[in-house]
């Protein structure tokens, strides 16, 4: 399963990066969110052991590792905030340059 997970994380990363490199701003935001997914998947799979039951104190079976889960929990929400913020900035860029094409945004220089 490790191999499959690793390859999947790699694929997601590649897709995210590819999307971020698109000229269409909406696509680059989608790329950013796919990257967030990839990272969360990575975090999940770093759990020290594979559990059979949810991480409750009442569980009798082998519990899943609670620590990465707590990390992901916050990461998921934070990445939503970050994405929304990026969207707002893209909106400003598009209204300022009258374009949704990243290549036409050239105000970084000068």
């Amino acid at each position, binding site marked *: 399963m490790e191999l499959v997970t690793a390859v999947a994380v790699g694929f997601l990363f*590649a897709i995210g990066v590819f999307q971020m490199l*698109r000229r269409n701003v909406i696509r680059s935001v989608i790329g950013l969110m796919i990257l967030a997914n990839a990272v969360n998947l990575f975090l999940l799979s770093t759990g020290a052991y594979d559990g059979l039951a949810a991480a409750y104190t009442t569980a009798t079976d082998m519990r899943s590792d609670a*620590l990465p889960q707590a990390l992901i929990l916050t990461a998921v929400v934070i990445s939503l905030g970050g994405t929304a913020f990026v969207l707002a900035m893209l909106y400003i860029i598009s209204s300022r340059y009258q374009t949704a094409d990243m290549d036409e945004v050239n105000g970084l220089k000068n």
Partner: protein
Amino acid sequence: MTDPTLLWPILLILAAASIAAVAGLPALNRRLSITQLSWILALAPLSAAVLLVLRVPQANDGTVFTWQWTWLPALNLNLGLYVDSLSLLFGLLVTIIGTLVVVYAGQYFKGDQSAWRFLTYLLLFMASMLGIVMAGDVLTLFIFWEGTSILSFLLVAYKYQYEEARNGAFRALFITGGGGIALLAGLLFVSYAAGSTEFATILSSGDVLRSHDFYLVMLGLVAFGAFTKSAQWPAHIWLPGAMSAPTPASAYLHSATMVKAGIYLMARMNPALGFTDAWFWLLTIFGGITMLAGAYLGLKQHDLKGLLAYSTISQLGVLMMLIGQDVPEAYKALVIGVIAHAFYKSALFLVAGIVDHETGTRDLRRLGGLRKVMPYTFAAGTLAALSMAGLPPMFGFLAKETLLVTVTNMPPVVAGVIRWSTVLAGSLMLAQAGLFIWETFMGQTKDPDVHGHEAPWPMWLAPMIPAGLSLVLSILPGPKEEASFLAAAAQAAYGTKVKVSTVLFHGLTVEFLLSLVAISLGFGLFVFRHRVRAWQTAVLPDMSFNKLYVWVLAAIDWASEWATRLQQGRLRPYLLIMLSATAVLVFAFSWRTFSVVSLGSWPGLNLDDELDLLRLFALLVVVGASLMSVILVRDFNAILAFGAAGLSMGLLFALEPAPDVALVQIVVDILSVVILVLALTRLPRRQRRKAQEVAVILRYSRWSILRDTAVAGAVGLLVTLITLTALTDRPRESVVTPYFAANAKTLTGATDIVGAIVVDFRALDTLLEITVFGMAGLGIYTLLRHAAQKHGDNRAVEDGEGTAVSDRQATYGISGMRTSAFVRVPAFVSLPLSLMLAATHMMYGHNQPGDGFTAGVVISLAVALWYVVFGYEETRRRLPWLRATSFVAAGVLLAVITGSVAALITGNFLGNVDFTAGWAFMPNGFHISTSFLFEVSICLAVLGGAARMLNSLGHPEGRDRD
């Protein structure tokens, strides 16, 4: 010996600098004239000088005063002072001449009430300069060193209205600042090799340093710093440019003190780096060229200050040369030369300042005959000029003669070259001294418009004192204290005992004869000065080495232009470069550490295991849906594909099993899709279509697609390898989780370990996180409000594509579309339902899946549905209680209050307290505890932040009631 009062001189001067700055306040500035101010301020360097003099007797006996302040003990970095006779010698020059210059400046700027700025800079410079010569380790030295460069810049550019001043200041800073960087590198090498940044250690580890592999690098870098600071050829060009500073600054910085910093540094480092052939040749060659170039160029100047600047350069070359010689006499000459030059040159500068101040010109071609109207100035100038000329009985004579003595122990050719260059330079200097006095004070005025009158007494007294000192110190028949002080200073620089005598006449020696030759030659040059100067101008009209500086600047400009060509100002190329660089670098440096486990030992995929099969399915969906988001042409479809991928992520989490995460992932995913779609409607379709590349993949942008695929593939491969390494090498036993699992119930009362970690064990993290989330929402609001005001809304420029809607139309739902009752009724129902759901999540979050995050996002989803169904205006009207900003504030505030109350009760911020323990009426399993209240605040903050995002992205130009 350790001496905490060592800091006093510097502190005194810093205090004076602050007084000068305070005197700039209008209220004070009106009452206190600059002259009065300068009298008060002069007390500081005066008392500093006294403090230093008091240490002289002990220092003569070889005592070294030290003081240290531990700065960064972990890095073994200290700030320290180290004061021996050499430091005292320079320190006394800095403070004594400093006192005179402050008084003089008060007269020079009389009536100019804005000159407090000048005095502030001057005193700050004085403190830095004192810091250099008293520094006890290389870091302290470097900090003060840079301080003098910066203050020199400020002083040269004091009259910043003039372009000349700005250029001169920039050039000085460029050259000395560049030298400073080299010096820092050199000093770091030295302290690395010596094993300490402290001078005490460095000075005693000379043998280690000299035999070190990097000795030449250290020497080169340190010398580069010292040469630029002390205006050695060819870096000397900044000094004439710095003459656009007000004359008091020129007298102080650019003749007496700052330019001596390089001399001091080399003298200080001599025991550590000196006594090698490289040292000798480096200092002798550069010093010699500087000596000759300065003396030669000085003679052709018409500007009084320009003449003095070049003769200063020449003298600095002499001093640098002396440090290079491995004979005790050289160091004797060095200490005498430093004092002599500081005294006579500052006096001459001050005289030039008086002439300029009283007549309005510094041009030798216009001045003349001033001796009658300015007798005292004339007297001071003549004394100093005699000293500069190297005539007996002045101090300068001693210096010159000692210089001639030093070359006795050398190979004849080298000795001859040095000796005769010295004679030549000496004669040129004599001619310049004569020129200075004669053309200014003697004869008749050359320009009838130039009238002068005597300056007020404090003004002429200021040059008179150093000029007189240079006479007194040499005429007095060798006072014992003076000689032993100079000997001690020379010894500190040289390392072994140096005998210093200040007796003028040693009998009829070769040196004396050479002195006579120099003097006669100088007189000859002086008598034929007009012809010599005309010849100089004719033969080498432009020999100022300024071209070099211009070329260096041009080369730097060219290089930076070339480098910035990469900087296209577009985001995608940056991203491409950064990502490929990261991939290449990580591959290059860590491919060995990737765990390349043999295929056999990989835990294989067990397809009989249903759980694994399900996971495989979920992973496939995640990857496949993400891939679809690339391939699908329409943005809307791509967003939906992304949403599918997110839902499948939720499935993966559920399979872990991680129910809390799965829940949050699913609701957040839906909310993300809603926000993305909202944002999509904000970007005009025409713009997006223009940017649409995927549609034309096969047609024209094939190369860029290939390139992006390659980069993305490389990054993906890298991440795969990293993940694989992380997964195969991870510890099979968690260090922290067992603690959380064991203590969740007892410490927090929660059976949900993940929930316990989020709201209890790591509660502070969560508090910060909800703050960040809320801030993101508020940030979006601010950004979009700003944009809406500044650039107008996108929709205003949209031309008839159907997405443009007015606010009135917006009441009919998103994009002005009428919604049917079948949609509206579920929307009405969903909001209260979501509130109930949220409430149960918060109440039972610590025993069941779900928590405050889920609660907040669920309510936000219901609100989002309202936006879609009823439109912005209608939703705002129907839900007046939805005040996003207040919710964020309330959430964070509630969390802080709860945490503080808990802190009062348990002693831990956000520690677990059950406020309703033992109450009979509570529903089963529900307690109002800190956990619950914290869940509520999380919910509030998330709801507020999310609502803010929905509002702003859905309706950026909207006026808001918050």
